[in-house]
């Protein structure tokens, strides 16, 4: 159920914390707590943009929220913006953001992100998570296992398990596999369940959010 006061949304430039009209700052704090506990993963280390869709908060209240988010959830506030008009729906309603141009925001954040190498196959029941940046796997990601990364996921083998890139909301994140045979992919909060045959393609593929705001999977030629 949607929270009436705050909403956490993944946008192309990262996570937004949208604050709607409310009675007191205490009410906002409680709503934030609810919204964050609803996400079944840690947001630790992530940054958020506070979007005020409500009568503007006092300077004091904002700094209170800022320290609260930092201390309680390890969330850094990247900026505060005020939106008079209703906040646009994620991506779909933002036509100017449609195509991913690696030269802009994504390239920058990708360059500044750390990456972690996992030098083995990830087997059923195992999870590999790296919210701080990208994951590179020197092996397969087997069915029944899961890889999650704040940035990109690169599998130098067969991806059969589920992969979740851009878990902190960076929607320029991509998933690349030598053989992409996953039944479930996620980038930001976009899900994709490829209706693939189990047959190997024989070439690497890349999954990313395409112009239609859906995850597209295509032959990987070069980045």
């Amino acid at each position, binding site marked *: 159920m949607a929270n009436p006061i705050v909403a956490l949304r993944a946008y192309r430039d990262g996570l937004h914390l949208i604050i709607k009209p409310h009675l007191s700052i205490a009410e906002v704090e409680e709503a934030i707590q609810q919204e964050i506990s609803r996400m079944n993963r840690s947001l630790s280390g992530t940054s958020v943009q506070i979007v005020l869709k409500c009568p503007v908060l006092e300077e004091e209240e904002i700094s209170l929220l800022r320290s609260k988010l930092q201390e309680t959830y390890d969330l850094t506030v990247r900026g505060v913006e005020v939106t008079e008009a209703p906040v646009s729906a994620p991506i779909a309603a933002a036509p100017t953001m449609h195509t991913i141009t690696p030269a802009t925001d994504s390239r920058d954040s990708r360059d500044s992100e750390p990456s972690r190498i996992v030098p083995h*196959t990830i*087997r*059923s*029941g195992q999870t590999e998570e790296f919210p701080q940046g990208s994951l590179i796997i020197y092996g*397969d990601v*087997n*069915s*029944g296992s899961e890889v999650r990364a704040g940035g990109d996921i690169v599998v130098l083998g067969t991806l*059969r398990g589920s992969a979740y890139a851009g878990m902190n909301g960076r929607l320029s994140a991509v998933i690349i596999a030598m053989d992409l045979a996953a039944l479930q992919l996620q980038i930001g909060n976009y899900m994709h369940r490829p209706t693939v045959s189990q047959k190997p393609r024989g070439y690497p593929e890349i999954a990313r959010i395409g112009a239609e705001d859906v995850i597209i999977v295509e032959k990987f030629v070069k980045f």
Partner: protein
Amino acid sequence: MGRVIVVTSGKGGVGKTTSTANLGTALALLDKTVVVVDADVGLRNLDIVMGLESRIVYTSMDVIEKQCELNKALVRDRRVDGLMLLAASQKNNKDDIQPEQMKAICDKLRTTHDFVLIDSPAGIERGFRNASAGADEAIIVTTPDVSAIRDADRIIGLLQNARIEPINLVLNRFSAELVGNGSMMDQDDVLDILNIDLIGVVPEDSGVITSTNRGIPLVYEDGSPGAQAYMRIARRLTGQRIPIPDFAQKGLLNNIMNWFKKKK
């Protein structure tokens, strides 16, 4: 010092007990001293498959509770020299035994025998942990179907975390015919996923069921394809280099027909 090998799978009913009984017997026929240990406490059936049910007096539980000495609890298989069974208690359950207690038993058995084969229960819980606690190697038994393979994969991950290696694969109930007509995964497909060493392929063999019912391990039935497969695996376990025959070859005609089907 003997080798302690856990025979395990994750999924139930894929042939762990059948494999333990046959490999144990086969190793003894190759003049090795062997103890097969039933670690499926509460659901034991290694004794039945080996035809030793009526001769059990003590179980590993009695040893743990110090009701009897370990070597008194071992049941000798009279058909072949050097083969013993350590039975599991049927009236206890898996939580009644601690991993360290199983490990202590294995460590003792390895000082007097060349091989200690442990028949693990299905699952990834306590029973599996008890069974693998004293092992330094593992044999994973799987059938060529996706759910068994996924469970095997899960188990391999757990064994690797526990630093148990090598981990060898037995592909059981393989049918060249089904692979030939494209309705069963072939061994390359399985190995591609599991990525461990294959130590043998055991064909689907109706002799397994009759031998189980008679309590005489299949390996005594010289001509049967299952018996030959288990004998080859036992030889490989002792370090002999024996090629794995390509069972799918028999389905050559099928393959050709399949190829024509695909062309259409």
